[in-house]
């Protein structure tokens, strides 16, 4: 069949519009990358001792000192404290954001995030169990001696997975709507918070202090050691998530459409939830709960590049990284020279942004 001329030009026009749309998305990603880079450099210059951006840039270029005693203080501070801190912010922001995006897509719910689904609360409880009762849940799985830090991470992770799967199986039950899943997540949050309160009640003062400190998510806990763990985890999760970009797109039209389009929906759900839970668990157990990034960053991403996960996943990662670096920089500046835990700041940055996004939407999705 030969289409009439008008149809032919329409067809070419649509193809052109699509190509233009792809170019615009790439441009947005590039811009976000630049913003992120600039914020990173700026973030290096703030902290207990303030340097100018130029000074920190020079210290950064000088590289890590081979002999810490011989190096000047600035170089030492930049390389042992601030570089891992900023890089951790970057990766954790990206990780929490991609975890939130995965949850929103998989549960088809714009309110899903590691925080609103109670996953952060579950991680806190796991950590609390480790700090206060010294109960090592990891031992049941891995009967080998593990260090104190690893035990807390392990506990957090296990409770995160428990929480994730409880929510998942509930969402699979018949006639459970998307709103119910979020309500269930809120319920989980309260349960785990209550359990954590109980732990606090029975804890000794010094354990309490440790737990309370733990529960202020903070990038001051960052170190090169933790950075590498986060790097491996976030990189693996982001790559595996990205490989599913088309499947996530398909899922937006509903399970049945996706499945008839060749997507293994069940497997996608389980792997997606596991990956996002793993990322959240690792970040939250190493740095403490950091809220709102996982909720807000995907919405920022969607506003910039739309619903195609091939662009949405990187855009969300970048948005999360930018938000967390920004929040961290602000937390260093607000009460300088004191540094606020970033977990407090993300809510201050994230909530107004979320409200703005809700108000700006032309159509309500929730």
């Amino acid at each position, binding site marked *: 069949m030969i*289409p009439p001329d008008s*149809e032919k030009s329409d067809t070419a026009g649509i193809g052109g519009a699509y190509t233009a749309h792809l170019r615009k998305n790439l441009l947005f990603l590039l811009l976000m990358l630049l913003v992120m880079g600039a914020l990173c450099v700026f973030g290096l210059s703030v902290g207990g001792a303030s340097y100018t951006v130029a000074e920190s840039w020079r210290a950064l270029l000088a590289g890590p000192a081979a002999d810490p005693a011989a190096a000047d203080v600035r170089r030492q501070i930049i390389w042992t404290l601030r570089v891992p801190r900023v890089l951790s912010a970057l990766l954790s922001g990206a990780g929490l954001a991609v975890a939130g995006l995965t949850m929103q897509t998989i549960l088809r719910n714009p309110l899903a995030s590691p925080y609103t689904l109670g996953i952060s609360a579950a991680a806190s409880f796991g950590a609390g169990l480790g700090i206060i009762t010294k109960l090592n849940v990891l031992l049941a799985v891995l009967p080998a001696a593990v260090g104190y830090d690893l035990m807390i991470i392990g506990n957090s992770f296990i409770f995160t997975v428990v929480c994730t799967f409880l929510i998942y199986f509930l969402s699979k039950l018949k006639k459970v709507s998307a709103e119910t899943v979020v309500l269930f997540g809120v319920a989980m949050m309260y349960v785990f918070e209550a359990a954590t309160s109980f732990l606090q009640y029975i804890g000794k003062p010094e354990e309490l202090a440790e737990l309370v400190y733990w529960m202020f998510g903070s990038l001051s806990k960052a170190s090169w050691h933790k950075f590498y763990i986060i790097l491996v985890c976030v990189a693996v999760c982001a790559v595996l998530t990205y490989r599913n970009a088309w499947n996530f*797109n398909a899922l937006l039209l509903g399970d049945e*459409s996706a499945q*008839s*389009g*060749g997507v293994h929906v069940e497997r996608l759900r389980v792997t997606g939830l596991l990956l996002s839970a793993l990322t959240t668990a690792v970040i939250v157990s190493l740095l403490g709960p950091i809220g709102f990034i996982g909720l807000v960053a995907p919405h920022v991403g969607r506003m910039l590049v*739309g619903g195609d996960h091939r662009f949405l996943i990187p855009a969300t990662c970048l948005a999360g990284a930018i938000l967390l670096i920004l929040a961290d920089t602000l937390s260093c500046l607000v009460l300088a020279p004191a540094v606020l835990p970033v977990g407090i700041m993300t809510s201050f940055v994230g909530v107004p942004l979320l409200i703005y996004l809700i108000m700006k939407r032309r*159509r309500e999705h929730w």
Partner: protein
Amino acid sequence: MVTLQVKNLGFSYKRHDVFRGVSFEVDEGMILSLVGPNGAGKTTLLKCVNRLLPPKTGAVTVMGRAVQTLSRLELARSIAYVPQASPPPFPMTVFDTVLLGRRPYLNWRPRRRDVDLVAEIITRLGLSDMAMRDVNELSGGERQKAVIARAIAQEPKILLLDEPTTYLDLQYQLRIMGFLRELVDEKGLCVVFTTHDLNLALQFSDRMAVLKDGVLVAEGGTGILTEDVILRVYGVEARLLRSGGRPYMAPVRAI
């Protein structure tokens, strides 16, 4: 040529039989409408044909091959399914929606041919002005077109549609069905759709299958839909009228 063959198909949720002993065949270039009252098992039957649900008994054969033996991708390239309307929870452009139909053929990057095909389908369905708009901003009829376009982009041999015209106004009902008719005649596709609109079924299908309480009451050409069948299946007294050589169903009253 027989494209779709359903033989003695049965399905049950726990102990409750949804349907049983259902057999029918659809040739290439044919539209079969599946009608019957609410809860008759029409949707479940479509899902079993598409392997979304595992049948308890019987077999489904596509172009001579049992669906169980097909891989996910082979199945996706043979059968496309349009479920009852449910808008996506997040913004998504019409183009991206239709492009999803190409997923069973894609490695990662859509090729030129994929983009061209998607653009052509969008144009033919009259959606070219809204190709880059969010499907959530469209009217129900336009959105339904986009969803059907997605299934067509999948280039299946068999297209299954679950109540494709529900919630649509008269204009869109006729347009969508007319478009499907064109497509079937042109590409030799085989279409199975469920509907509550008996007149639409009479007008656009080559064959009809009437399901009641999980049993196929009648199956064959549109002539099988008699006043007696309507009374038995729907409990409705109706008159079949003829005009311009076509039958029309006029409901009189519920019994």
